[in-house]
């Protein structure tokens, strides 16, 4: 899916590198160097997602998001920043950003997050509704899951993991995203917790026969086949 993205970043060298990587993933990128130019660009054009640096000269990232939201512009915003404190993240999300990513970020990780925030905007269903992905069905509300109509017994965390993968079926979820959303941690553990749980989930999903529905995207994350 080719997307039209606005990259707002004052460090030109870094922005050019990131833009090149995102272009390689098939997106159209426009780059501006400060907050005022970003607001001007958004007045002119519509973007699928805005990638916004937080610390910039002239108008900083927080003010840009606040200005956008005040004008009723609901474009998804991913704040890309060097500030990693928990309170910084809270500030960013409270200002109206959809996601908050600490620099540097691999292009693939950013790509996965872009898709996730856009997908999030399209959701009309509640978090507890039954989710279908291929022959996998997950019902978070009743803590149950099925594959090809056969019930699968899952522990609480495994069920949450499968539900998150199913919600984003066909998209890549990175380890960092899964740790954030499934485990609810605000830090990245050094141990391979996500990999271990994916492995257990795979075993349980394939016990009754059938191909492995979870795809590993090497070095990036996992994706449930739609």
């Amino acid at each position, binding site marked *: 899916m080719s997307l039209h993205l606005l990259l707002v970043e004052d460090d030109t060298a*870094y922005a050019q590198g990131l833009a090149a990587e995102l272009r390689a993933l098939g997106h159209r990128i426009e780059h501006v160097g400060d907050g005022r130019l970003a607001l001007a660009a958004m007045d002119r054009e519509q973007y699928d997602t805005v990638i916004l640096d937080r610390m910039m000269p002239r108008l900083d990232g927080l003010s840009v998001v606040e200005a956008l939201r005040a004008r009723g512009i609901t474009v998804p915003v991913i704040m890309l920043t060097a500030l990693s404190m928990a309170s910084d993240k809270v500030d960013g999300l409270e200002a109206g950003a959809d996601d908050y990513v600490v620099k*540097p970020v691999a292009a693939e990780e950013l790509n996965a997050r872009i898709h996730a925030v856009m997908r999030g905007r399209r959701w009309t269903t509640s978090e507890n509704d039954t989710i279908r992905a291929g022959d996998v069905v997950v019902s978070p509300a009743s803590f149950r899951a099925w594959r090809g109509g056969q019930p699968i017994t899952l522990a609480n965390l495994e069920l949450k993991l499968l539900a998150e993968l199913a919600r984003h079926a066909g998209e890549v979820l990175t380890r960092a995203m899964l740790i954030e959303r499934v485990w609810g941690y605000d830090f990245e553990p050094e*141990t391979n917790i996500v990999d271990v749980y994916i492995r257990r989930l795979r075993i349980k999903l394939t016990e009754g026969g059938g191909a492995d529905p979870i795809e590993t995207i090497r070095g990036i994350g996992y994706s449930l086949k739609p």
Partner: protein
Amino acid sequence: MTARAIRRISLPGLTLAVLALFLIATVATGISVLATNRMTVAHLVDRRVDAIADLVLERDPGEGLPGTDILLARIDALSRQRDTGDVGLALTRANGQWLGGNIRLRRTLPSGRSDLRTDDGIIGLSHGRALVRDAGAGRRLIVVAETEPFDSYREMRTRIYLIGFGSIILVVLGGMFAFALLVARRIGDQRATVDAIIAGNIRHRVPVTGSADEFDRQAAAFNRMLDRIAELMEAMRGQSNDIAHDLRTPLARLRGQLSAMVADARDDDQATRAAAALAQCDTLLAMFAALLRIAEIEGGERRAGFAPFDLSALVEEIATMMIPVAEDAGHRLSVAVDVAMPDFVGDRQLLTQALVNLIGNAIKYGAAGGAIRVSLDACEDGVVLRVADDGPGIPPEDRARALRRFGRLDSSRAQAGHGLGLPLVAAIARLHGGRLVLDDAKPGLVVSLILPGR
């Protein structure tokens, strides 16, 4: 008492000490006033008795002492007069035989002055002074006067003293109590401020009453100090933001270029080398992230977000979550939670990170196929969260270094990772008012995260 001892005394102690001193001084004053009073009365009575004796024994010019008849007549006359009617007079022989007068005595008084008591049997006299003087020709004149101006004078006097000094002591006691209360309240304001600041509310200040008294000046000085600390913290936070920004941006550029090199590699060898460089860059970034995280924790701001949660349930939950991870690495993980901490107040995220970190370490350094034991128990200071492995452990001399930033041990623990795991957990312990202790698990390492019980 030395100046140091005085400085060490507590406020109630000081109040009691001053009160005791005051009490002693008051009692001493009372006793001396009483004694002086009695002496003065005795002295005045003595002079009166002398004067009356002089009157009785007065000689006509050129003659000796008057005869018995004259003396008795004089005694009789004095007894009738209003001024001297209350004075007892008697004329006796040397052997005590009564010759006349208005009193009779049960005993023979020594010559000169003496004290009289109730058992001397003189009607209406409880305490008095007597004077026995030689009246010539083997006769003696006895003059007796009361030292009590009215009945029960002594009891009355004692009562007056008790009431007087008692009320003084009560007033002082009340004053001291009010003073202690005032001081405690004003100092309590400061303590509340310190507590609020430790709890993360750096904007809190000591209330100033506006009376410009000692306490107000103290509070103002204290507040100025807090303003300065807040300024410094703000500057430090700005600095750490600047460092984060100024270092992360070039690192991000570096990572981007390395990542591009991996993608654009012309052959496998180039790809492998670029990937290795990228991995090293990521280690550097992880280290930097851990350092910033430690700085964030040590800044203490996260205390403002402390909230109650069930610590026992959290330990159980995380240990259970880590069992598959431990099994995956060939370890057995067991958990024993022996204390209920349903309302522990702290940072749930940080304690989660601490426990995940400690169990991760145990998985990394524990003996292959070994056991990892996680436990939560009550201890003297509150609760102790222990994670024990049966790996090589850390020799006692290296333990302090293992808790320091960049104090990574080169021999046994020199595997992957940035070596900031234990310092991070130690910072989390300190943020919660606890501490981290490393010990020998015989064999292996046991890490104890001691948290104050609330």
